[in-house]
């Protein structure tokens, strides 16, 4: 089981290289000269030539590809011409921001999603179930950027101007400017404050999906014989659901986690854009638009890596929650 997962993961590395190669050629062959982005009125052709050279665009495509591949395999992701720093540094600056945002959102999404899903399954067919179904489907159907804009309107602008709330949530960035001068505790609070709206947006959208999934899975579980057994044992209902039901209901949800895990990096693209969250999503979009090829390639590889990692994680988690699988590798 584990060895199977590991082998699959190792097999994924050439796969990811293949993906990055694809991106390399798509970006390189797309119309327009990447260097011409840096053209400014009054610039001379000689300068353009130098820009092209320093971006490594003066060589034939295949040589460029070979050079990129060689460096890439050695862990050198190249140089971001737009940000004027090594890609590695640029990505290392963006990655933690995205991870913090997305992992928080994933945590809350699964927490809320599981609670709501279980509640719905327990109260199946009730008014509460219908209402919650409607609400989760509503958020599930909503474009994330749209929700983000609405939340800004409600929780920041209206909260402050119309409703006179004592505080409003910051609408952009990961911390207030000058937060480095604050006491550590206030710095922490400031960061949490900034996390509220983006996390809420992501959470609402993700939680809808999780809840729908959990509800289905729990409905299936609740009808199982062992739930009846647990009740016949005299266990209190909460314990029946939360121990015997949930533990089984979560097994398929683990797959969902495998699907959502790559979200840690890529799923936040639009939300980062709206909330000016300096993370991977924003970096990728800007780099694609600026044809900052090395950043796009490294990012792609990383994103793909997350998908592979997500699958591996789902496999491992499957083993943790389902003894039938854990034991099958003997």
């Amino acid at each position: 089981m584990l060895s199977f997962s590991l082998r699959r993961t190792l097999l994924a590395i050439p796969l990811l290289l293949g993906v990055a190669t694809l991106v390399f050629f798509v970006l390189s062959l797309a119309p327009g000269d990447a260097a011409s982005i840096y053209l400014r009125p009054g610039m001379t052709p000689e300068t353009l030539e130098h820009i092209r050279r320093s971006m490594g665009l003066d060589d034939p495509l295949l040589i460029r590809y070979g050079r990129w591949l060689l460096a890439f395999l050695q862990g050198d992701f190249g140089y971001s011409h737009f940000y004027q720093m090594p890609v590695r540094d640029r990505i290392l600056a963006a990655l933690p921001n995205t991870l913090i945002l997305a992992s928080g959102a994933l945590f809350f999404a699964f927490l809320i999603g599981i609670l709501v899903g279980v509640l719905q399954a327990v109260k199946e067919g009730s008014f509460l179930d219908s209402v919650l179904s409607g609400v989760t489907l509503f958020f599930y159907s909503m474009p994330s950027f749209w929700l983000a804009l609405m939340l800004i309107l409600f929780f920041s602008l209206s909260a402050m101007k119309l409703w006179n709330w004592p505080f409003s949530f910051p609408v952009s960035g990961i911390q207030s400017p000058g937060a480095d001068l604050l006491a550590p505790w206030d710095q922490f609070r400031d960061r949490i404050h900034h996390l509220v709206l983006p996390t809420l947006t992501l959470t609402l959208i993700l939680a809808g999906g999780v809840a729908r999934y959990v509800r289905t899975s729990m409905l299936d579980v609740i009808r199982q014989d062992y739930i009846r057994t647990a009740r016949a044992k005299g266990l209190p209902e909460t314990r029946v659901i939360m121990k015997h039901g949930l533990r089984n209901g979560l097994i398929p949800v683990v797959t969902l986690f495998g699907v959502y895990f790559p979200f840690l990096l890529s799923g936040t693209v639009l939300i980062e854009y709206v909330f000016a969250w300096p993370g991977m999503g924003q970096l990728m979009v800007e780099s694609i638009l600026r044809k900052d090829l090395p950043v796009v390639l490294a990012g792609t590889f990383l994103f793909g890596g997350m998908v592979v990692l997500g699958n591996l994680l789902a496999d491992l988690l499957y083993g943790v929650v389902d003894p039938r699988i854990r034991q099958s590798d003997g």
Partner: protein
Amino acid sequence: MSLLEIQKLRTHIRTAGDDARAVDGVDLLLEEGESVGLVGESGSGKTLLALSILGLLPEGGGAILPGSSIRFRGEELVGMGGKRLREIRGGEVAMIFQEPMTSLNPVFSVGNQILEAVELHRPLNRDAAKEEMLRLLGEVGIPDPEARAGDYPHQLSGGMRQRAMIAMALAGEPSLLLADEPTTALDVTVEAQILQLLKRVQARMGMGLLLISHDLNVVSRVCDRILILYGGKVVEAGPTQKILDAPIHPYTRGLMGSRLSFDDRRRTLRPIPGEVPEATDWPRGCRFHPRCPEVMDRCRREEPRLLPGTERKGAVEVQGGAPGGGRDVRCWLLAGEEGGA
């Protein structure tokens, strides 16, 4: 005061259309230490009856109708809820189910699941509870309890799983055990072992036992008395031996005919024709009449009452003892005696 006294139990299942009258006025009496068998084809309402006792009807699916009464040692169980009901469940009244594979939670070890029941119903500390759990495993005949306790249900054989189920049921030291088709999913040799086990623990612990099965054979090996259920109603009830020796109701006779037994090889297998109708759509008159080989006009019109059965009208010889010899039958074939009420 009887251990279990069921009166006029009516349990209906809600469906999109008419309610299904799955259990429709059953009376049952079970004394301390007595073992009673409940026999009927699938769809006769026997499982639902057992579930009704512990209030385990599927949520939103089934309901016990007003006027029904289930008394356990005089305590009314119908409408009971909360803590007391949970104390009774698994404590004073335990239940084992048909499919040990699906009835055991696949993600917890069997030891864990038994331990849970022990801790719930017995005032033991953790170590003592563990001790007790291992003892129970040994009691139900699982070899090497220490090792097996850590096993998950899927790692055990069918027989072992059912033993574990029984151990779990015994954890609360119940005075009544409801066994719903405990051997159906098992092969014949294992079935015999499990029945023996049930019999042994019942005797040792002095429990009352309600054994539910579609197989008259199985029940007759364990039980003192037998109730035959058809269409949610008792059609014949009486001491095991009497029913085996002289079945009166055509349905009982049908069941006897369709059973396969080792000790009675002379008989050929004669299954009852047709199927149990939907519980939403019982036929008028006697519920068995569409399948009855001895159907009469009256059967189609009127529903028979449950009467003390002594003899059979017609060609069949009358067996058994004195009138009212502890046997009740619901059939118009007996109507002659009553004078056609």
